[in-house]
């Protein structure tokens, strides 16, 4: 927690981190909803602040760092459970998220601080290239239940990803993460 506070202070966004509250919530799994709400609201507030300060590239780096960390953990768990299809698919569908991250990076192509990470992310994109996501659209239906329009989604996606793909993605993710933290 002290590392988070120190890092946030160095980035001049320390005012958004109530470390005491976050620490208290993080120690009890019953508080995960509150923790999620606080961290989401925090990120939105930080993003808004950084945009006002013309430091929006930092928002993109924060987002990318969080995503890479989650990817690394998921890949580790998936490698320990190679037969877990759902976990593999969860990794595979991150291809779409990576596309969106790369789209964000494209706005900062002339930014030297972003260039090296962008180059790494493009290598990660290559590791995702063999994965196919097939989307089949079918018209949805809906009904109103207790004042809420509840949709029945009839479309589907199938994600084709092999264990080798997971290994390649994990290797590249670990490599990027190690470069960031070293």
């Amino acid at each position: 927690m002290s590392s988070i506070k120190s890092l946030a202070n160095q980035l001049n966004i320390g005012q958004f981190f109530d470390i005491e509250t976050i620490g208290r919530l993080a120690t009890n799994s019953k508080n995960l909803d509150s923790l999620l709400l606080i961290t989401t609201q925090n990120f939105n507030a930080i993003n808004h602040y950084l945009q006002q300060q013309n430091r929006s590239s930092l928002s993109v780096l924060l987002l990318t760092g969080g995503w890479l960390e989650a990817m690394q953990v998921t890949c580790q768990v998936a490698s320990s459970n190679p037969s877990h299809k759902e976990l593999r698919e969860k990794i595979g569908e991150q291809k779409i998220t990576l596309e969106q991250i790369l789209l964000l990076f494209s706005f900062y192509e002339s930014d030297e601080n972003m260039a090296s990470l962008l180059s790494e992310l493009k290598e990660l994109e290559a590791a995702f290239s063999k994965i196919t996501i097939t989307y089949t659209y079918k018209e949805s239906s809906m009904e109103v239940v207790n004042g809420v329009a509840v949709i029945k989604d009839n479309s589907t996606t199938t994600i084709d990803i092999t264990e080798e793909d997971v290994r390649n993605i994990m290797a590249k993710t670990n490599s990027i993460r190690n470069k960031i933290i070293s």
Partner: protein
Amino acid sequence: MCVTSWQKQILSETKSLANIVLDMKKIYLSVVLVFIASWGSAGLVGQCDADNLSNACIPKLSGGFNFLKSYKIDGEGGTKDKVEYSYVFTKGTQYMINLCADGNGPDGLVVSLYDSQRNKVASSKVNGQFISAIAYPCNATGIYYIQYTFDGSATYCGGSALGFKR
């Protein structure tokens, strides 16, 4: 006696004229004040506090949905016909998008959800009825477009929150 009577009449008519002028001044002043007041309030109506409305929408995410993102809906008094955002939805996750406007209902605000191929998959206007929230159990991972439109809205202003649960 005759002169006095004539003088009295003149005096009385002068007073009546003065009263009429005074009344006209009052009327003129009232008209000006009403104009200024209505002009001022029109300016206030034109201001869209979408920030507040989107924040107000967050606690209205009911049924165990966790907050993800809030959206401002500012149709700039009708000059914009739609406001659009995008989000990556994943299969196996249920999403809720709600609407908040001044007053009780959604004030003609409609949220529609489009998939990556721009097929409409959900709308908060059902059989001509304006619904304040949609729940979308996602079955297909991909980028989705959350589009807000105005259908007979008085303020062209509102807020919205996106939540999820598994």
